[in-house]
Every structure is written in structure tokens, then in C-alpha cells.
């Protein structure tokens, strides 16, 4: 019975009941929330996208198994975290991506970013994002998409967007555009987020603040790089193109790599929004959301340290 295991065995053991929530329930709920994006990828890209997703899944699961054996831990494939990482990683890859990049990125994500730190819950960076920044640094031309609306906008401005017929917001929203495997359909991503919120897996604080901040920032400064004035950006186009929706709804909200308290989450998300806009507008990279999450993940323990809640009964002594 519950009680006499470990050091805690020497004290009275309580409570004796549990609400029977588990890591598996949370993780597989996230996997379910990721399924619509895969379906949309199949609908718009056909079998190519499924090959990439499948390769990533296989690599992820095999790597997880190997790392469990290497670290002499119980095999944790069934807890679903490796599946989530592989799915998210494959969603960030373009359909033209060679498979060896998918394999090596997914291996890096799970073996180095997650397991070198001790497995689930110990990593400081989201594994999928870690894999993404690795492959974009290693094989930039193969692992980023050249013809999605955001790249077209960045290289040619709004005229290029209209000439490529990307100005239809409905198409952008549904996903009838070129892009990476999972990020194209914002509808599918939002459906997944809605499912997670309904199942009480998470509070939508980070996605809303992240997208809101990015929208405001991109509206104010969006016209500057092209030589325009302030307040001439097009936040709707910016939010509907690129991977910001995927990033905000699935990467930034990762339990392990986001702050604990609500205040911390808000600070985190505001920084994410600003960094994403800065990288999108001025950097060499087209999509800043993933890089900004990678950068802010480093500061999460610091944010946690500075947003501790005031303990009940502290601070009002006498």
C-alpha cells in the first residue's frame, strides 16, 4: 500500500486518494489535439506530408526507446511525450525537406535536447524547437520553406504577395497555401487548441497574449522595414501566415518549458510576441516564432524565480 517507499516512509503518509489524472492522459490529449493539423496536411499536400510525419514519428519512438535503454530508465514511449515531440518537429518541416534532415533533427530533439538533460520534465528547451533550430542552422536551405506567403512577403513586399495570390485571408486561414507540413491550416491548429482548453489541459493565456502582442507590434512596426510609416503593418496577414499560430498554440504552452505562474506566463508571452516580430521584420530568418520560443525558454527558470507568488502569511508580519 501507499507509504513505506523511499525516504518519505518514515513519516505519516497522506493523502490516500488521488484524482486519477496522469501524464498519459495529458499527453495523449495533446496528441489528439495535434491530429487535425496532420489531417489538413494530408488534405493539402497529399502523401508527401504523411511520409515526413511518419519518418519523424518512427525516429522519435526509436530514439526514445534507445535513450531509455541507455539511461537505464523504464521505457517511457507510452507516455506520449516522444510522439508529441516528433509530431511537432515534423510539422515545422517543409514537404520538400529531405528525409535525412527529418531523421537527424528528430534524433537531436529527443536524444540531446530532452534525454541529455534527464528525460521528460528536465529539459529547459522545448525538444521540437531544439531540433528545429538545429536543422535550420545546419541545413537552412533545405529545412525552411521558400515559397510560403511570409517568405514571399519578406522578399518582395505586399506586391509580391498579391501577385502570388496570397491575399485571400480565407485561404490563409484554411491552409490552402504553400508552407510547412503542419503550420498551414490555422483552422486545424485552433481546433486543437480549443480541444485542449475544453479538456482543461491548459489555460489559453500564453497563446492569446503571444498572438495579441505580436499583432500589436507588427501593426505598429510592420511597415518600417519596407520604408513605410508607423502603424502601417498588416497584423492579420502576419498572424495568418507562417508558423506563429502553431508555435503559440503548441510550442509556447509546453508545460515543461513555460513559466509556472500566470504572471510569469504573461511576461513570457509578451517577450515572445516582441521577439517574434523583431526577428520577422529585421532578421535573416523568415519565421521568428520558433527562434523566439527557443530564446525565451532559456529565461524560464529566471522568470519563475522572479514571479514567485507571495506566500500566504508572509509579508504581513506584525
Amino acid at each position, binding site marked *: 500500500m501507499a507509504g513505506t517507499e523511499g525516504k518519505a516512509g518514515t513519516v505519516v503518509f497522506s493523502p490516500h486518494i488521488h484524482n486519477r489524472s496522469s501524464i498519459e492522459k495529458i499527453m495523449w490529449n495533446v496528441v489528439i489535439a495535434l491530429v487535425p493539423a496532420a489531417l489538413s496536411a494530408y488534405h493539402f499536400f497529399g502523401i508527401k506530408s504523411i511520409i515526413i510525419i511518419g519518418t519523424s514519428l518512427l525516429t522519435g519512438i526509436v530514439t526514445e526507446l534507445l535513450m531509455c535503454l541507455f*539511461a537505464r530508465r523504464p521505457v517511457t514511449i507510452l507516455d506520449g511525450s516522444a510522439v508529441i515531440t516528433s509530431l511537432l518537429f515534423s510539422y515545422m518541416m517543409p514537404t520538400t525537406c529531405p528525409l535525412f534532415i527529418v531523421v537527424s533533427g528528430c534524433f537531436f530533439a529527443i536524444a*540531446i*535536447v530532452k*534525454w*541529455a*538533460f*534527464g*528525460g521528460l*520534465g*528536465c*529539459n*529547459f*528547451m522545448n525538444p521540437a524547437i*531544439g531540433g528545429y*533550430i*538545429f536543422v535550420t*542552422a545546419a541545413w537552412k536551405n533545405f529545412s525552411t520553406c521558400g515559397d510560403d506567403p511570409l517568405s514571399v512577403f519578406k522578399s518582395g513586399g505586399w506586391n509580391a504577395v498579391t501577385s502570388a495570390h496570397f491575399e485571400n485571408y480565407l485561404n490563409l486561414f484554411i491552409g490552402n497555401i504553400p508552407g510547412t507540413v503542419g503550420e498551414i491550416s490555422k483552422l486545424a491548429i485552433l481546433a486543437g487548441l480549443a480541444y485542449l482548453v475544453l479538456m482543461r489541459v491548459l489555460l489559453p493565456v500564453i497563446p492569446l497574449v503571444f498572438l495579441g502582442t505580436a499583432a500589436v507590434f507588427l501593426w505598429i512596426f510592420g511597415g518600417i522595414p519596407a520604408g513605410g510609416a508607423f502603424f502601417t503593418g498588416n497584423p492579420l496577414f502576419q498572424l495568418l501566415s507562417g508558423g506563429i499560430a502553431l508555435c503559440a498554440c503548441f510550442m509556447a504552452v509546453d508545460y515543461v518549458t513555460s513559466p509556472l505562474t500566470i504572471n510569469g506566463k504573461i511576461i513570457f508571452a509578451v517577450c515572445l510576441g516582441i521577439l517574434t516580430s*523583431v*526577428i520577422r521584420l*529585421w*532578421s*535573416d*530568418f523568415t519565421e*521568428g516564432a*520558433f*527562434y*523566439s520560443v*527557443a*530564446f525565451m*525558454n*532559456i*529565461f*524560464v*527558470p*529566471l522568470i*519563475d*524565480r522572479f514571479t514567485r507568488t507571495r506566500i500566504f502569511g508572509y509579508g504581513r508580519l506584525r
Partner: protein
Amino acid sequence: MDLLKITSASFAAIFINNFVFSRFLGFCPFFTVSKKPYFAVIPGLAVTVLMTLTCAVLYPLNHYVLAPMILEKYLQTAVFVFLAYLITQAAQFAMKRIMPYSSGEIFSYFPLLSSNCAVLGAAFIIINENYNIIQGLVFSFSSGIGLTLALLMMSSVKERIDSPHIPAAFKDLPISLISAALMALSMYGFTGIFK
């Protein structure tokens, strides 16, 4: 316009050409930093002040003493190293006088001497790149801020990599190096912003 250039140069020195993540300087403080952010920021700022000070001393020395006498080829390294050593020793002494209680705790595992390669590296980079004195000062100051940022990042991450869950093979230095790799990769996203 000049101000804009200076600002962008200093931001580039902080984010893109970060001393730790792209120049491999300042390793010793970076890998020995503690988890308390206070203990990362104070030494970082001390190094910043030290770097600016060293630059302010060494730059005129190089330009007005060594260069006219055509000695820079022969004496530059020796003079720079020795002066930087003296300045760091003096700074350490001064710090112990200014804050006798906390500095003992901070600098016991973090001797300012260990930041010597960052201090000297800044001076050599300034000479190598033919910066003028203003550029040199801005560069060394912002590089110091970049080093402080790196220390802050490492102290933040220390909270996770000090945990007992890290596999035995990766404990301590390997995991710190891998974390540094991930940090460097994430800083890579800023390329192109400050040219």
C-alpha cells in the same frame, strides 16, 4: 546617423557576436556561474567595467607609445597581458574593499582573474579591427553587457542542469556545454538584425 551606427554595433556585440557564444571568450566565468541571478549579474557588471577600463588604458598605450616606437609587433602581447593582469588584480582588491561581505561569497568561486581572457580579448579585437577609440569603448562595454547576458542565461539554466535527474555521463561540464550549444543556436536567430 552616427548614433544609430553605434547603437546597432553595440547590439550586434551583445546578441550576434556575443563573447561567449560566438567568440569563445570568457569561458571560465560562464561555466562556473552560480544559480543565483544576483551572483551572475554583479560579476558580469564588474567584468564590463573592467573591460571598458582596460580598453581605455590599453588603446592609448598601443597608439601613442607602442605604435610610434614600432614596438607593437614585439611588445604588444607582453605589455597587454601584464597590464590586464595588474588591472584585474587591482579591481579584485578594490571590490573586496568596496563590498567586503558579499564579494567574498561571490568572488570566492569567481575570481576576476578568470575573466582575463575576455578582458584581453576585447583589447586585441579592438586593435585587430582598427576601431577608433569611441568604437573601441562602445565595443568593449557592450561586449561586457553581452557577457553579463550570457552569465544570466547560464545562471537561469543552471536551475535545470544542477538537478539530480541529469544522466551520470552528462553531469556537470558536458551538459553545460550542450546547454551553451543550444543557447548559441537560439541566438543564431538574431543574425541579420544589426548590421
